[in-house]
């Protein structure tokens, strides 16, 4: 079923919307959540919570990019469930990602008051300034949590190029956040 038809079901308050969403994107959403939580059961629960949140949000929302809309909710819920204390012990990949991004933060004291949504808006504006390849690599790494090897394989780049692009994009993000911090 087309995304527009599924969204119409939500607007019509037809509960088959949930089933159609599951049919269309359930597996991808569980994969995204598992990437964060490393637990099938937790991922399943997060996806169910995603459907509930989607039901509560549409209407009034009418997303143009339905899977992006769903995956944002799923990712947010999954991170909310993540126990970072345990993650530090068992998820070296996540810890590594956070350490990489940590180097993009110019002055923690200035940035402390920035809300997550505002920060998301700032990062979106930053990403829009990047060349397409740099933007895609950055998103695959820090949104989808892909490894550099997975990114290289999917885009036909060398691992070396992926690492270079990420390093350079992080350097630019540092500058961008620094400038935003001055204006806040």
């Amino acid at each position, binding site marked *: 079923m087309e995304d527009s038809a599924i969204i119409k079901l939500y607007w019509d308050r037809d509960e088959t919307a949930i089933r159609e969403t599951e049919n269309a994107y359930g597996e991808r959403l569980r994969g995204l959540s598992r990437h964060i939580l490393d637990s099938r059961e937790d991922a399943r629960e997060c996806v169910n919570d995603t459907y509930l949140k989607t039901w509560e949000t549409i209407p009034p929302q009418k997303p143009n990019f339905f899977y992006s809309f769903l995956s944002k909710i799923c990712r947010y819920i999954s991170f909310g469930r993540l126990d970072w204390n345990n993650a530090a012990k068992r998820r070296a990949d996540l810890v590594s990602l956070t350490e990489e*991004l940590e180097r993009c933060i110019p002055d923690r004291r200035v940035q402390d008051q920035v809300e997550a949504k505002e920060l998301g808006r700032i990062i979106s504006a930053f990403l829009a300034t990047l060349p397409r390849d740099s933007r895609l690599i950055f*998103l695959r790494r820090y949104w989808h949590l892909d490894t550099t090897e997975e990114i290289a394989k999917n885009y036909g780049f060398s691992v070396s190029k992926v690492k*270079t692009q990420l390093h*350079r994009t992080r350097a630019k993000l540092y500058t961008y956040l620094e400038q935003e911090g001055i204006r806040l």
Partner: protein
Amino acid sequence: MNGKELLEAMSFIDEELLAEAEAPRRRIAWRSWGTLAACLCIIVLGTISFRLLSGSPTEGLADQAVPEAALAAGAMQDSITASQEHAEEEPQEAGTPELADEAGAEVLPATQVRIIEVTEDGLIALILTEARDLQGLTVTLIPEEGMDISGVEAGKEYTVWATASEEDGILRIWDIQPADQED
């Protein structure tokens, strides 16, 4: 704010940007030298085969075909060897910051410069920002291969992203933006 919060805040990125990245796909490998070489060889060999099979007078042609095929095979081997060498070189050419750091090249933060002169090889620039004790120094900016600096003008200020070279006074730049560019 810390790295965890930044990672989590990415959940609020624009959906349109996410949609672009949702379907990872393989790049078409036309840029692979090996692929290009193989295609050329197929064209050459196909042409030879067509001439042999077309029934046109072949006296001497078979003799010619063998050297041509040998040349094509040789060219193919040379191209494959070249592409292998290129592939081996690529990780070093890419100059990953991790490798570059191991080799001693330093990746610099965004640096404000004023261009003094545009030369054939690069740019002569005055460092304006206080970074790594470079402020006030005149350096040579060498653009990364394929980088377009045709719009850069002497007398104007820019922000550059660079890697320090082993040679004093030289920075290898991989991006340059006008300093007064608004977001």
